[in-house]
């Protein structure tokens, strides 16, 4: 079976001179809940931006859902759902109109867009906020609406970049219930980057570790923890911190 996400030797250098990605190779299978971990500035967001066709790679190849961004970027955008770090809401519109407009932009009919807006408002429990302008919503509700917008067209692949930032624990829990259901019951592939490592620990099965623009580990979360902390049965956060420390110490020896 072809992978849902396929990166081969992806590189990206910004005009400032920063080499954000240095030949990234990565595959994510259909139906996985995959987490990309790494320190700030490691290249996580750049990789997500390239995969979602927001920015262009300098070199390498990649396929999303077997679609080639060089030939058909629009079909990739139709196939994926994206919730990036910052809320992307029109402050002068309300939740309902934003969801409906989003549905229409993705090709739903008026009736379908209305029905889908109702479903998502119910799923993300923002019924009481549906007619309030988005700039008046609380931080958590803005975030929920932001994530709901990514799901309007029922994408088969979901990119979540720090999706729960700003949500209270209860909202985070509800959010993950929704994402887990989509992943487990509907087979939606999820590509996650998060600073909340307990979320990755709890929900992701496969992961990759990226540092300084290069992939250092790809495999299961369980194996990563065993590899880093063989004797202890620690959390992903403990293993992550230990791995980063080990890598930095190892690299310092060669400087």
């Amino acid at each position: 079976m072809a992978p849902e996400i396929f990166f081969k030797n992806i590189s990206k250098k910004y005009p400032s001179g920063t080499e954000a990605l240095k030949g990234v190779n990565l595959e994510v299978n259909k139906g996985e809940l995959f987490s990309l971990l790494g320190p700030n500035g490691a290249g996580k967001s750049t990789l997500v931006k390239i995969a979602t066709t927001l920015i262009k790679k300098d070199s390498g190849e990649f396929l999303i859902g077997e679609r080639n961004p060089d030939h058909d970027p629009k079909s990739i955008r139709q196939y994926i759902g994206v919730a990036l770090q910052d809320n992307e809401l029109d402050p002068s519109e309300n939740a309902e109109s934003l969801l409906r407009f989003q549905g229409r932009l993705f090709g739903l009919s008026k009736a379908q867009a209305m029905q889908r807006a109702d479903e998502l408002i119910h799923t993300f429990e923002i019924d009481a906020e549906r007619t309030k302008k988005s700039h008046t919503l609380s931080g958590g509700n803005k975030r929920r609406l932001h994530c709901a917008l990514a799901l309007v067209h029922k994408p088969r692949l979901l990119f979540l970049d720090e999706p729960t930032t700003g949500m209270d624990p209860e909202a985070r829990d509800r959010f993950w219930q929704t994402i887990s259901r989509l992943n487990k019951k509907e087979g939606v592939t999820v590509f996650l980057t998060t600073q909340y490592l307990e979320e990755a620990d709890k929900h992701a099965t496969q992961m990759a570790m990226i540092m300084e623009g290069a992939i250092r580990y790809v495999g299961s979360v369980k194996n990563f923890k065993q590899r880093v902390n063989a004797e202890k049965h620690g959390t992903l956060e403990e293993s992550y911190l230990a791995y980063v420390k080990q890598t930095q110490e190892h690299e310092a020896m060669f400087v």
Partner: protein
Amino acid sequence: MKTSNTLLITRSILKLVKQPTAPVLGFIMSLFFLIVYNAGIGGIGYLDAFGEKGYLAFIFPITIISLAMGSSSGAGQTLYADMQSGYFRRMYLSPASRRMLVLAPMLADTLSSVFLTGMLLAIGVLFGLPFQFGLLSASGVLLLSMLWAITLCGFSAGVMLRTGKHQSAAIITNAVFPLLFLSTTFLPRELIISQWLISVSWANPVTYVLEANRYLLGGTASRELFLLGLLILTVTALTSSVFAFNSAGRIKV
């Protein structure tokens, strides 16, 4: 037309209707020019250099030019607001045409400018504005107004997209403003004393926009000047649109 294109254009028009500050100010400024100049110096229209149709037909084109100048920053400002809120990126991530994301606010601005030009023409009729070729003249003025509006809002949107600063959306207005005074805005060439001003006015594209309109209204300009004006405006509108489209590819998302 594709549904997503229609949606984006409708959205831009509704945005302009909800926040009409720029076009309304442009309209008020134009009306002010029309009334004040006609009342203040309309008497010189009896001079031979203005032909038989008087000063109103001569001064009216300046109201059309100032109208688009006043409202051309609307597209840039709509784009800026969307980029500031992050909503532009959400639309950028949809399958909708990325060029249409830039074109839609430009079209909304242009439609608003043409609509308000129509209103100015109606007010002009009340003042006794002549039309050399009847309805054909009115249609021609609307066409010139459309091309002028596309020129201004395309450059305005493009500069804003490249710099990412909303102040730059109004930069085109500031750039065009001096050109008004280096042209045959208030007097025909025959009555301009300074030779350097006459020379500069020949090199000033605004002159040709004015003269093309004057051909259609009072008939004080030649057919050749009208055709030249139409050609210049078509070229500048196309250049401006290409500039805006290319700027869309340079957006930092």
